[in-house]
């Protein structure tokens, strides 16, 4: 897999996934004049401002009204538009979940939901704004595609790819700058998982990760390799539809033991999706990295990742635990 050659370097480029989305939205808008953007008073935070400047006639300011925004987008999609709606994940798909269910998914309307500022890495704003439930909320809805990009470049590619599908999709973004681990040449396809780290000897366990914690997972795997423990890492950017074949192959080639790593509640998220599939098709011992049925609090992103047990050291501990099972 072609990744950023500086992936293990301390001066790796840092960029927020919302920045990648911003570039992707412009590309999608250049390609298709039916792409429109709607935002609920967070245009700069969600990084729709570039699109707004270039295509003011295709941008619609909804005010602080996420519920109406979801349904307005449904109406626009019914008229052939490809609406991207932007807010924080806690408000969309949080606040407006039933509008997304009824007016977007029940209609199979071609609306793209952009949930920024997900997870505890929102930081100082505190637990009320740190959405740790959105993957669960989105993936339980029929017709919905759910994508959690690992870095800014993948977020850009996912945005462009979403604009070309004809069904509802949710894209989960983060606030802080995070490591750019892929390269422009790294392939991306909705519904395809990718092995991002293969140890130099046969893997005894595997890490399935999504979002910026893919980077922490790769770092953990590299450190474990130096300790003589060999684990591989799968980037599961598309959580729904699940790449069942890719996950099965990964489990078979990774010692049949899996750690799920995500910045989300342990219940109902990406790990849950993998566990549901594996329990039926290939029962597999699993450990889960994520929020342990708790809300977040104020702090720096690094402090909070550490506090809620989602960083590289927690991942390494989980690997050691599962190897004892």
């Amino acid at each position, binding site marked *: 897999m072609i990744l950023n050659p500086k992936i293990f370097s301390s001066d790796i480029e840092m960029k927020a996934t919302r920045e990648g989305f911003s570039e992707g939205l412009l590309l999608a808008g250049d390609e298709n004049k039916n792409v429109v953007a709607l935002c609920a008073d967070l245009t700069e935070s969600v990084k729709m401002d570039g699109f707004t400047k270039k295509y003011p006639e295709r941008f619609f300011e909804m005010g602080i009204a996420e519920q109406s925004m979801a349904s*307005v987008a449904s109406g626009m999609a019914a008229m052939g538009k490809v609406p991207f709606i932007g807010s924080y994940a806690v408000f969309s798909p949080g606040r407006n979940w039933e*509008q997304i269910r009824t*007016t977007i998914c029940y209609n199979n309307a071609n609306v793209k939901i952009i949930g920024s500022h997900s997870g505890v890495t929102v930081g100082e704003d505190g637990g009320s704004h740190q959405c740790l439930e959105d993957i669960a909320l989105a993936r339980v809805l029929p017709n919905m595609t759910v994508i959690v990009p690992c870095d800014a470049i993948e977020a850009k590619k996912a945005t462009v790819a979403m604009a070309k599908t004809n069904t509802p999709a949710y894209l989960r973004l983060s606030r802080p700058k995070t490591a750019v681990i892929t390269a422009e040449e790294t392939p991306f396809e909705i519904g395809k998982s990718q092995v991002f780290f293969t140890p130099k000897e046969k893997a005894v366990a595997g890490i399935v990760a999504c979002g910026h914690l893919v980077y922490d997972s790769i770092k953990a795997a590299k450190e474990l390799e130096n300790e003589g423990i060999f684990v591989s890492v799968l980037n599961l950017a598309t959580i729904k539809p699940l790449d069942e074949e890719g996950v099965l192959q990964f489990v078979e080639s990774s010692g049949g033991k899996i750690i799920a790593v995500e910045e989300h509640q342990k219940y109902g998220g990406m790990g849950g999706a993998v566990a549901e599939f594996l329990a039926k098709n290939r029962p597999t011992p699993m450990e889960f990295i994520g929020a342990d049925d708790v809300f977040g609090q104020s702090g720096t992103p690094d402090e909070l990742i550490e506090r809620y047990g989602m960083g590289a050291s927690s991942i390494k501990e989980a690997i050691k635990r599962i190897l004892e099972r």
Partner: protein
Amino acid sequence: MTTILSNIKIKELEEKARDIRISIIEMLAEAKSGHTGGPLGMADVFALLYFYMLKHDPQNPSWSERDRLVLSNGHICPVLYATMAHAGYLPLEELKTLRKFGSRLQGHPHREFLPAMETSSGPLGEGLSQAVGMALALRVDGKENQVYCLMGDGELNEGQIWEAAMLAGKEKLGKLIGIVDRNNIQIDGSTDKVMPLLPLKEKFEAFNWHAIEADGHDFQSLNNALVEAQAITDKPSIIIARTIPGKGVPEIENDYHWHGKAPSKEEAERFISVLKNPSL
């Protein structure tokens, strides 16, 4: 501005509305569940829209030049289904399948089953936003289609209605016409008791809408309101149509208990005979 409806046209619309009401009673009795009061109360509005006002083609439901009609209060769908059947969108015989397994006529509208409808609905308060989205998208494309949104008055309790009302006022959506079924009832009782809406006209005016009151059972009054609303091009319009729930069947008119129940076979026979011969 006012277009006078001829006596012949009014007579024709009255007959359509009566036929729609009879179909509503028949289909609800067959389904053994569903809402009776609201659909009967809105039959005149639907008759005027589908048989006089709307630009539409039942033979070509996806015609791009058609006006859009969003039914926001999906629970009154028997009147939508019955009107669409009488207009030629679906066979009259199919009305008997309402609420039955495999039917295109779902308990609340699901567009996946019946694509000739503009949207799915049921959960209240969501249609006006969709109509606003349609009107915005049509305006971006330079289209002149009219967008109608039908709402219940109880539905106006939903906050999302006012989010959409604010947006439509801000965007000066002259092609958007909302119609409120002002029947004064909701499930827990009268709208005055459950959640007072007055002053309703002024509420919409405060949101920068053009507001009109009309008699929802007087075709001339309704037509005047629609013509007036169409002539307003710099703001959205709302028509508050005063209706009588259960209209046409005096023994259930204005009785909120008939909001959410269907007539028995015997009741249906009685109601239909009254509809066929109001002097009985």
